[in-house]
């Protein structure tokens, strides 16, 4: 009996990781009304926002965010579930092992580390990097660019 209890206790944390809540792992993204990058934005999502997973549509997830429902590309999501196989057998620093990206933010290489690195290396022109990152493409103009150029984007099928 003791052994069974022990087995349950040992495996319980892994079993409990299965859940349907996911988090946004990118600074900012859109919740779309269709599984398509060019569809209407229902809401703007920020890093760490929690979403309830409802359905997977190809590379897209149908999610609920508060009272709103919509679609988000799965590459913008992180799960707290642990992919045991990947964790066990991956050794590369670049592995795509499933990990809670939101929980890891603020650890390791952080804005504080970058700030101190910048101080130690004033030749690094972070202002220029910021300038590059500030440049954004207007979604409506991009939609027009794609359509007028006879191009298309991938989309999930409902």
């Amino acid at each position, binding site marked *: 009996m003791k052994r069974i209890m022990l087995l349950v206790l040992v495996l319980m944390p892994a079993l409990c990781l299965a859940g349907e809540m996911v988090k946004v792992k990118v600074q900012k993204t859109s919740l779309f009304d269709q599984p398509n990058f060019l569809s209407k934005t229902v809401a703007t999502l920020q890093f760490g926002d929690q979403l309830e997973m409802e359905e997977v549509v190809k590379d897209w997830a149908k999610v609920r965010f508060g009272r709103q429902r919509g679609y988000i590309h799965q590459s913008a999501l992180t799960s707290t579930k642990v992919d045991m196989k990947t964790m066990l057998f991956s050794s590369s620093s*670049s592995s795509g092992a499933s990990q809670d990206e939101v929980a890891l933010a603020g650890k*390791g290489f952080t804005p504080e580390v970058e700030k101190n*690195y910048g101080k130690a290396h004033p030749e690094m022109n972070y202002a220029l990097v910021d300038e590059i990152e500030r440049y954004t493409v207007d979604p409506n103009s991009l939609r027009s660019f794609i359509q007028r150029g006879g*191009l298309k984007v991938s989309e999930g099928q409902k």
Partner: protein
Amino acid sequence: MKKIILLLLVPMFVGCAAATQVATSVAVSAGYITEGQKQALDKTAVKVEKAARPVSETEEYYIGRGVAATILTKYSLYRNQTVTAYVNYVGNTVVMGSPRPYVYGGYHFAVLDTDEVNAFACPGGTIFVTKGMLKMVSNEDQLAAVLSHEVGHVAEKHGLQAISSARWTEVVTTLALETAKAYTAAEMASLVDLFQGTVDDVFKTLVVNGYGREQELQADTLAIGCMKTCGYDGRQFVSLLDRLEQTSKQTSQGIFSTHPGIAERIQAAKGHGAAAARPPAPEERVTRFKKTAVSW
């Protein structure tokens, strides 16, 4: 007893120190292990948890910013609104056809003011293309080929693979699970040194040594898939490689020093369907390329 030890190892080797601590506490209560053994197992679990962690996406972003800042010490930024806008339109289009359209800080495309023929993908999504490379492309589809290839490197995190595993183990095992506010001045100094080493590892691969053959072929495969998804003509990928191969016979600078084996890449690209016929590009696509190309 052996079975008990094996059970204790399960949470430890999935990298869950907290679960191990629960399990070892139960094992001590039940008399299976001593308090000393518990402490040893708990310590090992913490070490395993730390070492198992790959580079997080926020760390990838900061490493990429460091690499971009380093590249900008070597090259000047080409500040032409028309060109920057056009490159970003094409870049953001191909991103939507990639397997990783979202990265922490988003994709950003910029032009370097040099005649050297090259393009660089910083981890995290900042992609540089040189004016020399822009002069090499003959149409928008070829520009899409260059940018798709670089997006492929980001999607596959090839830049991060350049980080010395010994350095990353040091980052993770010594410091990385602490929050920044908990660092002492000495720890922060050590972390900054490790950050610099990490940025240098990636920079050297991107700019000096180049990626490995497998990584280049993988990025090509992704690029062709990406172009097809977006409606660009994959044959232009092969045409561009043909042109690069011809140019490589005259110079060994820039991309030609870091991207050998173009002939093999051409064959592989054809094998991945890059030679499949597509309808001609609409007039709008042809015209906007020509209008923008006069600025580079």
